[in-house]
């Protein structure tokens, strides 16, 4: 695909995304944060991040902002995933392998319930 054509595509994607946003009028955004320090990467955090993006893409989830962060000091629990819904407090999950990520995303982001099995206190 040549660069100019793909930028035209991107403009269309933007317009469609804005339309959808207007139609759904979503309340409060959700933040998903993946630990990506050396410890996280060595423990498989890149695949964790990919699983988060896959979930959003495959389930067409709007209003989630995904970001990465460095080592937060609990390397033995990596890969680590943190979720903040709206104004609520940050929930931290440990050992978030891709299969676990799917469960966490379904439970916490889609259904609004903390996924207890992998929740850790920091």
């Amino acid at each position, binding site marked *: *695909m040549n*660069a100019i054509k*793909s*930028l035209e*595509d*991107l*403009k269309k*994607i*933007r317009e*469609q*995304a*804005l339309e959808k*946003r207007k139609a759904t009028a979503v309340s409060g955004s959700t933040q998903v944060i*993946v630990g*990506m*320090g*050396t410890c996280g*990467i*060595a423990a498989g955090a*890149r695949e964790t*991040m*990919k699983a988060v*993006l896959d979930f*959003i*893409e495959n*389930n*067409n*989830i*709007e209003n*989630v*902002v*995904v*970001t*990465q962060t*460095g*080592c*937060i*000091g609990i*390397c033995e629990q990596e890969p680590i995933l943190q979720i903040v819904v709206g104004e609520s407090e940050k929930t931290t999950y440990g050992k978030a392998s891709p299969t676990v990520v799917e469960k966490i995303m379904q439970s916490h982001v889609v259904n609004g319930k903390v996924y207890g099995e992998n929740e850790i206190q920091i």
Partner: protein
Amino acid sequence: MKEISLHILDIAENSVNAGASEITIEVIENIKNDTLLINITDNGKGMSEETVAVISDPFVTTRTTRRVGLGIPFFKAAAEACDGSLSIKSELGKGTSVSIEFNHSHIDRMPMGDIEDTLTNLFIGYPNVDWLFKYNANGDSFLINGKEIKEILDDVPLSDPSVINFIRNQINDGIGKIRITE
């Protein structure tokens, strides 16, 4: 870490932590010269000469969460294991540039691995950074300019599902077509 692309992710994280707003990742494969070059350049806070001199020592780190820093020593060891090298140029207040050279055909060179995934993650995971990715394989090149893309998207976030799909496809198709490494 078993892939060069995981090390690239790790080094790029350093650039983000250095407060960089512009980060360029360049990969150049050249079969004729038998080289695989990687350059990661940022405009972050930079390091003093003294810090650069000791940065390959695993017991030197500026982090406060633990006392060892393994990223640079890991990557350096991986490059040196196959007649390659890692060098760092840095200036306080200006930024840092890390260059890694591998002998492309060396039997001990670790595979590149999923470089597409590494770049997609960085692109979406650090929306405040202007990423520039350049991939060149035997003269064929691919480039993706984050600033340009973000300007078009304007108020639509990078983690919008259709945007994730777009970015991923751009990177997968663009690099997939030309890359030589496994």
